[in-house]
């Protein structure tokens, strides 16, 4: 039974991995909307004036599209050309310099402009979420079916045993063998032995499972000081994870955003008008009120300039806890390993308040290390594994299985414990 269960688990995990990595790819797609949310959204909205002007109709306002391209890529240089409209704009917005985007191509800008056009005028509902892939159905629990079957079979066998013994008794009666005093089942040694063995096995199993789960907190979903919805930010508004979690690509911790990062957008976004926010228990959350909570931490009064030094840090409740003797590095996984956030954190873009998706157990880590391939061909670091490269070429190593993390020592103790 347990074997079946774990098989089912493996299958579902595998399914999930495939599904969620496809989500990851989708998020990386460089379409206009995501470009907009990555590059522009912190200062611009389509229909609203934020740090910068509202972008609806921006193409019509600029006499020449070429100028617009130049302005977006390097506004500082363009200003120096003395363009009248650009300088007017610059002065209008208190000479706040716009960021430089030298990496954007004309095509990218076209895509962004296309997106801006596609957004309906103010008042209309925001565009639906892009993350359309379906979540994998919960682990299909066949355990119950098997359990029921076992129970039925056990009952049947008990009945049969009883029938058998009655028949034996009858035949004995007929044969004239005197009936032995019936031993009640609770004093029957065979029964007692059988039941104690069953109890031992079940009890042992439960104790072991219980003990293994000590300190694990899958599905942990504490109430946070502010109802922060990843669904609204990462799902609906398509904000790139790293806009807030800046450490992900560089360091050990993904890091939580500081208040000034929140305020980058929320200086302007002071109300929530999206889909109703509902907690798991059915309570409806007032999004606007939650934004006001942020203002309280930030020490921000609407309509007045914000003094960032007044901000106080927000004491979030930590969800993902690893023991002190475990070393985990986000950059290693996300940057070097190109693992999508969702693989470990679940469909974060669909979560209201965050819930711990994986149990973060060692078995869970190791299983993934066994199956996941490293960026063997794409990352120059692995060029030192000359032998593996040769073996892959010559077919000695299965290129479909590739070089897994385990193959280069990723399941050894001191990769995570030191």
């Amino acid at each position, binding site marked *: 039974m347990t074997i079946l269960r774990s098989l089912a688990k493996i299958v579902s995990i595998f399914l999930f991995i495939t599904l969620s990595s496809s989500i990851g790819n989708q998020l990386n797609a460089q379409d206009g909307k995501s470009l907009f949310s990555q590059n522009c959204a912190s200062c611009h909205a389509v229909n609203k004036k934020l740090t910068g002007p509202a972008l609806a109709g921006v193409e019509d306002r600029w006499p020449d599209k070429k100028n617009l391209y130049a302005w977006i890529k390097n506004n500082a240089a363009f200003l120096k050309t003395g363009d009248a409209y650009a300088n007017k704009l610059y002065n209008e917005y208190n000479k706040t310099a716009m960021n430089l985007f030298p990496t954007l191509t004309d095509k990218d800008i076209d895509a962004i402009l296309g997106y801006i056009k596609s957004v309906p005028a103010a008042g209309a509902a925001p565009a639906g979420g892009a993350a359309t892939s379906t979540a994998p159905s919960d682990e299909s629990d066949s355990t119950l079916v098997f359990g029921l079957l076992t129970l039925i079979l056990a009952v049947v066998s008990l009945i049969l045993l009883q029938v058998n013994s009655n028949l034996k008794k009858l035949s004995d009666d007929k044969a004239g063998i005197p009936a032995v005093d019936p031993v009640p089942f609770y004093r029957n040694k065979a029964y007692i032995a059988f039941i104690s063995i069953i109890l031992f096995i079940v009890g042992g199993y439960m104790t072991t499972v219980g*003990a293994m789960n*000590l*300190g694990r*907190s899958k599905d942990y979903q*504490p109430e946070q000081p502010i109802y922060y919805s990843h669904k609204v930010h990462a799902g609906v508004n398509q904000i790139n994870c790293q806009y807030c979690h*800046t*450490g992900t690509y*560089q*360091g*050990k*911790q993904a*890091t*939580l*955003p*500081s*208040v*000034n*990062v929140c305020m980058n957008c929320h200086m302007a976004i002071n109300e929530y008008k999206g889909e109703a926010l509902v907690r798991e228990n059915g309570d409806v959350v007032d999004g606007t009120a939650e934004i006001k909570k942020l203002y309280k931490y930030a020490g921000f009064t609407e309509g007045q300039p914000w003094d*960032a*030094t007044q*901000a*106080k*840090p*927000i*004491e*979030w*409740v*930590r*969800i993902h*806890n690893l*023991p*002190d*003797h475990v*070393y985990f*590095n986000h*950059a*290693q996984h996300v*940057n*070097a390993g190109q693992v999508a956030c969702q693989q470990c954190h679940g469909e974060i873009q669909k979560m209201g308040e965050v819930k711990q998706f994986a149990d973060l157990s060692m078995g869970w880590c190791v299983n993934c290390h066994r199956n996941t391939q490293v960026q063997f061909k*794409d*990352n*120059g*670091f*692995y*060029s*030192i*594994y*000359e*032998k*593996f490269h040769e073996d892959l070429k010559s077919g000695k190593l299965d290129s479909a299985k590739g070089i897994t993390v385990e193959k*280069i*020592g990723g399941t*050894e*103790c*001191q*990769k995570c*414990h*030191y």
Partner: protein
Amino acid sequence: MEQKKHWQSFGELNNSEAFNAEVQNEFKEELPFVEDESTLEKGGSFLQAKAPRRDFLKYLGFSTAAAAVAASCEMPIKKAIPFANKPEDLVPGISDYYATTYVQDGDVISVLAKVRDGRPIKLEGNDLSPLTNGGTSARVQAAVLDLYDTARLRFPLMSGKEASFENIDKAIAAELNGAAVIVTSSITSPSTKAVIAQFLAKHPGSKHVTYDAVSHSSMLLANEACYGKRVLPSYQFDKAKAVVSLSADFLGTWLNPVEFAKQYATGKKLNEKTPAMSKHVHFETVASLTGSNADQKYTCRPSEIGAIAAGLLSAVKGQPITGINDVKLKEGIAVAADALIGNKNAALVVAGSNDVNVQIIVNAINDAIGANGNTINFGVTVNYRQGIDSDFATVVDDMNAGKINTVLFYGANPVYSWPQADKVKSGLAKVKTSISFNAKLDETTALCKYVLPAPHFLESWGDAEPAAGYYTFLQPTISPLFKTRPFEDSLLKWSGDATDFTTYLKNEWSRKLGSETAWNKTLQAGVLNPTSVPTAGASLNGAAVANALAVVAASKPNTTIELALYQKIGIGAGQGASNPWLQELPDPVTRATWDNYIIVSPSMARTLLNIDLNNAGQADDYEVHPPKKVVKLTVDGKSIELPVLIIPGTHPQTVGIALGYGRAEAVGKAVIGTGKNAFPLACIENGTVHFNCTNVTLSVTGETYPVALTQTHFRYDTAQGTRTEVVKEITLAEYKKNPTEILEEREAETKPYGGLEKYEAQGTIYPVYERPGIKWGMSVDLNSCNGCGACVVACNAENNVAVVGKPEVLRGHEMHWLRIDKYFSGDMDNPNVVFQPLMCQHCDNAPCENVCPVAATNHSSEGLNQMTYNRCIGTRYCANNCPFKVRRFNWSDYSGADSFPDNQEGIVNDVVINMSDDLTRMVLNPDVTVRSRGVIEKCSFCVQRLQEGKLKAKKDSRPFEDGDIKVACQQSCPTNAISFGNANDKHSAITKVRVENPNRSFYVLEQLHVLPNVTYLAKVRNSDEHEAAHEASNEKEAEKKA
């Protein structure tokens, strides 16, 4: 058993019973649960003791219940608190390195401070400094712990009570009229000097006096007499092919040992194809670190140094040597003179004496051998020590005469370190306004009326000019932890200047460098080096020399017992005494921790203590029991009682005591009960403090005192006694004669298994594993290593290695992952010494791995011997099976990491408990697990750095290079003795070292077929007498047996 060439202890030399018994026992402790201890006393074994079944059940029951209770506790709610406003360039979890400078009492070392999440946690050498080239010392490595010292002053004091800076400023403004005296240790900062000058100008009649606890007055005065300049030149040991040291400990404590160690090691690096080395002849009074490294050394009395110098001067001039009767010394002088004459213009003589006449004669020798302008550069003078003892003596007299109203102390602690401390105390009592700027309430500060806490150098802005034209800068790496104010800020304020020192410094340097941008850039590099280095000699004043020679010739030879006071590499003149890392660092010479003691020679031990070390029983009696006999030493009416250690290599009629101990309790928990102050024993002659005395009387008190000596710890032998030598040493002459001697030795050892080439495959029944990609390897050059101990402390800091305290060291429980073994060879009265740093050898066929019942230690595909603390159940089988004895067991809760509180009280001492104070714990490296009680730990090859370096390469999508990783011991080493890297990479530094040195490379205990990943390069000594002495000792041994 065959007489070994190298020995660590007298028991080993004598092959004594106790030695043989001890090497069979891995642990000093008997097993627990013995109901009837008499069984053991009767010689029965543990197995014959009554079965402690009930005890076993009791413990089992308790631990199950305890585990259940501990495990069923509710999971605590943890918070994740981000910044309110994140600084732009700071990524949590990623270390930033800031260039700054270690500055302490004239010592200046450019460093990089590793700052992790706002806390400096490690200091590394700054490669950009041409003086130190990235080298550090044990004290530099330990300095980061001083920042988090719980004994630091937390607020200013006025007459012993807490006060604010404003109130103190007001009070001082009212009192500060007229002349003041500023007493500081050597100040190397040009800006601080300018600030002092400004203060002196504002307060006419004031003066600035430099006070060094152990000064170089005699050298300064000798140079004034000889060359007309009161300066110290820079020495260049790298250019010297012959070095003669008259008991100057230039690798340990003399001027700037980090710089000298680096230079000295360049002369000792051996190119196997063209073997040539510098020659170092040393005259030694008490065994020292530098003497231990010498090619040839001779012991002498401190009072003989003058005569030796005079003799050497005659010898280099080709005149007969007079005034020396000792045959060996005469021979030594001749050897030294030969070396000097043979390397004219590339030779150097230095002396550690604080006698002006000796230094004048040394100047004359250097002049005669053409050192000036070659190995001694007067074009670049150094500022490490500027104090003139007589200047301070005048201050003491003036204070006592009531001539001084105001005195300011900064970095100077004369109440502790002036030989006539009572006079300083009485003088200080007569001074109306006494002000001290100090981080701690030390001996002098405690007697001052105003105490203004000074920030640690890691909290400070500043600059320093260690040598003329070489600048190095300080920038803060953390906000001040306590209410401190820089010394310069106070002086500026009190001279009516409103700018603070930070602004002052910035303005000054922006002006000098042309712009603020240039200043920022310089600050980032941390150093500003001269574009061209001026070289200059100096012309000698012959009259001064004649005079000095006359004085030396007139002094009568001394026949009484003499005392030499010396500094230890870790403790110095007391600066390191409050630092637990430095206290627990075994002194390289004596291998003792936590105390000072009287060092005597084996021959004096015979007469004074009745211990004949050639007698196995007596040697064992001395060596096996930590309590050592206490001796009362009296000199000039002053006496001190200290335990005695017998250290070979000490002059028979000379005893030595380390300075820097016996500090006031207020400077830290680590000084309580550790040693006694020896400064009062020094004498003042002609205004100069002399750290050696004649007419010493010694008397055995009959008491004993335990000394935590580590020399005999972690030694082991098999039941058959087949463990052979672990160091290999050869003389240069032997090497030239037969370069492949060591290789042949190895070949012979492995011959039964097909020789070196096939040894790996044929020496074992185990399969040979592939190591694709990376295979970590290390190489230690025993020729470069001088045993200074910087690596040991660096390892402590990097790997959160616990301090265990003296009682635990006494039991052999020290936790150091890296130890420096000291081996003697040859004559017991004046043996040669080899240092060998020994850490986990990361054996590819590791004996520890096979015996672990829970697979807590196993091998990685990169060749690391991994240790997983959370899997370890503490059977200690691995430690037992390790032939190198490099595994350490956490006998107690040293780190405070246990889940149960109060597991330390009454078990470990206050120093250890203090190490887990919230403040002290800020020094911990967050990337390394803090180990709890009951687990084994050991060197991991700094795996956290390996992983970090690999990740760095992966992030850049490029193959990993040497520069990505430097392990902590390698980084700290001032002589680059340690190479580390990927041995699979043909271009890596480690491969190069192994390929270029095939004749000197060897593995420790290679014949065991454990296949270590650490290679050593054999020590080559540039002496010819070595082999002869060895033969002589063998003969002696043979005679004895006959």
